[in-house]
C-alpha cells in the first residue's frame, strides 16, 4: 500500500470502526447474526441489531446468553446452510474457543470479527493480540487489518474464502485503535458485494428431510484424517485467497494483491525490515519515512494473513534482509513471542537467515509512539547472530521502576 493515496473520495464516510464493519457485514447479507456483547467489539453487533430493527438487514438476529452460545448458534445455523456471522473480543473469544475448534472440524464457514483485546488477569479492556494468538491452532483462517477499510474488506473477502474452503475465519482488527476510531472508509453496497460474493452453496447441510450427523464422533482410525483434511484446506485456501484478492480488486478497486494477498510491504526491499501485525503498521510507516529521509534504508513487511502462515512469502520477503525486527503485541510466557518464533522457524530452511530481534510492545493498549519505534529500528540495525536467548527478544516499554516496587 502506498502511503500517499488519492484524495479521500465522496464515496467515503467518516464513521466509527465498529459501525463501518457492521455495514460491511450487512452488505454480505448474512442469514444469521448471533450476538453477545463485550468491549470493544460491542459496537459491531449493536449496529447490526439496529440495522435489523430498522429493516435494512434481513437477518435472524439471535441474542444469546454467552459467547459459547454465540459461537454454537453460528455452528447450528451454518450447518443448516446459513451464512452466519458473530463478533467478539478477548475473554469472549476464549469462551468461544471450544465451539470454534468444533466449527473448524465440522468444516463450517463462519466468519467472526475479532476486536483484539488482551486477556485477564489483570483485567484490561485494551488492545493486543494475545486473544488471536491463543486461537492460532484451531483451524480458523486469521487476518489482521491495518485500518478500518481493511477491517471491512477482510470480512467480505473472509466470507468468500471461507465458503470455498469450508473453514471458519477470524477477521482481527485492533480493539479501540480501530473499533473506536472515526476515519473515512468506503462502505460497500449490497449490489457491489453481490458481484463479488455469490450466495452460499454448501455441499452438505443438516436437513430434517434428509437426516445426517455432523462432527459427532471419530475413532482413532478416522480422526487423523479429519485433522489432515483441515491442513489441506488451509494450504488450499492460499490459492483461493490469491484469487479472492484479485477479484476483489476488480470489483472494488482496492488492491490487496501484493504477495497474493498474504503480505503487504512498504519499502520491502530495504536493508533493514520490520515485521508487525495490524494497526501499529500505520504508525511504523511514518517512522520509516523519517528514517529514510535521514538515509537509513528501512522498510516494513506486514503479514495480512496469519493463518494460513505466509511461509514462502516471508522467505522471499525477508530472506535477503540485513536484519529483521519483529514488533509484536503478544508473547508466550516461558519462551518468546509466538510471531518471532514462527518467523524464525519459517526461515530455518530458507537460503539465508538474517538476524532477527523481536520486541514485545503495545501490550494491553500501551500507546506506541514514533520515538519508541525509532529506537527499535536502531536496535534492529545492530542485531547480529549469534544471540543468546536473553538478547533475541526485549520489552522496550518496560517500566523498570514499577517492577522494582515503585508507586507510579
Amino acid at each position, binding site marked *: 500500500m502506498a*502511503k*500517499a*493515496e488519492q*484524495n*479521500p473520495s465522496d464515496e*467515503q464516510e*467518516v464513521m*466509527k470502526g465498529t459501525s463501518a464493519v457492521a455495514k460491511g457485514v450487512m452488505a454480505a447479507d448474512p442469514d444469521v447474526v448471533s450476538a453477545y456483547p463485550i468491549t*470493544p467489539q460491542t459496537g459491531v453487533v449493536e449496529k447490526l441489531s439496529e440495522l435489523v430493527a430498522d429493516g435494512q438487514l434481513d437477518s435472524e438476529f439471535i441474542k444469546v446468553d454467552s459467547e459459547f452460545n454465540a459461537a454454537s448458534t453460528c455452528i447450528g445455523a451454518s450447518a443448516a446452510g446459513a451464512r452466519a456471522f458473530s463478533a467478539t473480543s478477548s475473554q469472549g473469544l476464549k469462551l468461544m474457543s471450544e465451539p470454534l475448534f468444533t466449527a473448524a472440524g465440522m468444516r463450517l464457514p463462519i466468519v467472526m470479527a475479532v476486536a483484539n483485546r488482551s486477556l485477564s488477569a489483570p483485567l484490561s*479492556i*485494551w488492545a493486543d493480540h494475545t486473544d488471536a494468538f491463543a486461537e492460532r491452532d484451531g483451524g480458523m483462517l486469521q487476518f489482521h487489518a491495518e*485500518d478500518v477499510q481493511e477491517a471491512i474488506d477482510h470480512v467480505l473477502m473472509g466470507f468468500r474464502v471461507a465458503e470455498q474452503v469450508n473453514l471458519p475465519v477470524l477477521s482481527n482488527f485492533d480493539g*479501540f*485503535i480501530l473499533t*473506536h*476510531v*472515526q*476515519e*473515512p472508509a468506503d462502505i460497500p453496497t449490497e449490489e457491489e458485494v453481490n458481484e463479488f460474493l455469490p450466495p452460499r452453496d454448501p455441499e452438505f447441510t443438516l436437513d430434517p428431510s434428509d437426516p445426517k450427523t455432523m462432527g459427532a464422533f471419530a475413532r482413532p482410525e478416522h480422526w487423523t484424517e479429519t485433522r489432515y483434511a483441515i491442513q489441506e484446506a488451509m494450504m488450499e485456501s492460499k490459492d483461493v485467497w490469491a484469487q479472492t484478492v484479485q477479484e476483489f480488486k476488480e470489483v472494488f478497486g482496492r488492491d490487496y494483491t501484493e504477495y497474493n494477498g498474504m503480505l503487504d510491504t512498504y519499502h520491502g526491499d530495504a536493508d533493514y525490515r520490520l515485521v508487525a501485525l495490524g*494497526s*501499529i*503498521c*500505520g*504508525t511504523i*510507516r*511514518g517512522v520509516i519515512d523519517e528514517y529514510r529521509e535521514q538515509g537509513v534504508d528501512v522498510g516494513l513487511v506486514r503479514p495480512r494473513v496469519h493463518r494460513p502462515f505466509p511461509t514462502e512469502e516471508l522467505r522471499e520477503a525477508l530472506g535477503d534482509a540485513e536484519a529483521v525486527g519483529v514488533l509484536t503485541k503478544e508473547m508466550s510466557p516461558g519462551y518468546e513471542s509466538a510471531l518471532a518464533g514462527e518467523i524464525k522457524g519459517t526461515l530455518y530452511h530458507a537460503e539465508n537467515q538474517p538476524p532477527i530481534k523481536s520486541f514485545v510492545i503495545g501490550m494491553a*493498549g500501551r*500507546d*506506541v*509512539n*514514533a520515538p519508541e519505534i525509532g529506537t527499535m529500528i536502531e536496535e534492529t540495525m545492530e542485531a547480529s547472530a549469534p544471540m543468546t536467548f536473553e538478547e533475541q527478544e526485549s520489552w522496550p516499554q518496560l517500566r523498570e521502576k514499577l517492577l522494582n516496587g515503585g508507586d507510579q
Partner: protein
Amino acid sequence: MDEIRIHGRGGQGSVTLAQLLAQAAHEEGTWAQAFPAFGVERRGAPVEAFARFDEEKITDRSQVDEPDYVIVQDTSLLEYVDVTEGLADDGLVLVNTSADPEDVDIETDAEVATVDATEIALEHLGKPIMNTALLGAFAGGTGLLSQDSLEAVITQKFGGEIGEQNVAATNDAFTEVSA
C-alpha cells in the same frame, strides 16, 4: 498535518466533538481521523479525545502528544491536567470560559483564545451541551473549517430542530471567535 487534543469531562461530548471535527475536515476534502483516549469512561472524570487532519492519508495511530491545537471544555480541569503539555509554541489553545484570554490560568507561549461556549449553548439549546459551540469557535479561530462544512455535518448528525439549534450555536461561536 494538523493535530488536535480535546480535554473535557466524561459526558461533555469530547468524543462527539472530535468526531464532528473529523467529519467536517472530510467534508472539506482532506483526510481526517478522530479517536478518544481509550479509557473506562465515567461521567465527570477527565477525558481526552484527538483529531488529525492531513492532505495525505493518515496512518499514525499513536495518541496526540504534540498537538497544534488544544480545546479545553471545562476550566475546572486546569488545576489537575497540564492541558498545554507538548503544545506547539505557534499553536492555539481554545478554552470554554467567560473570562478573557489573559485571565485564564494557563502558562504557555501558544496563543490563548476563549469563548463562552456554555452560555451560547444555553441560549440556543437550553442545555449546557457546549461541544457544537466549541466546534464553531475552533473553526472561527483557526480558519481550518468552513461554516458550510460544520452545518453539513451537524445537520447530518442531529437533523431536525436540534440540528438547527446546534447550527445556530456553532455559527454564533464561529463569529465571536473569528471577529
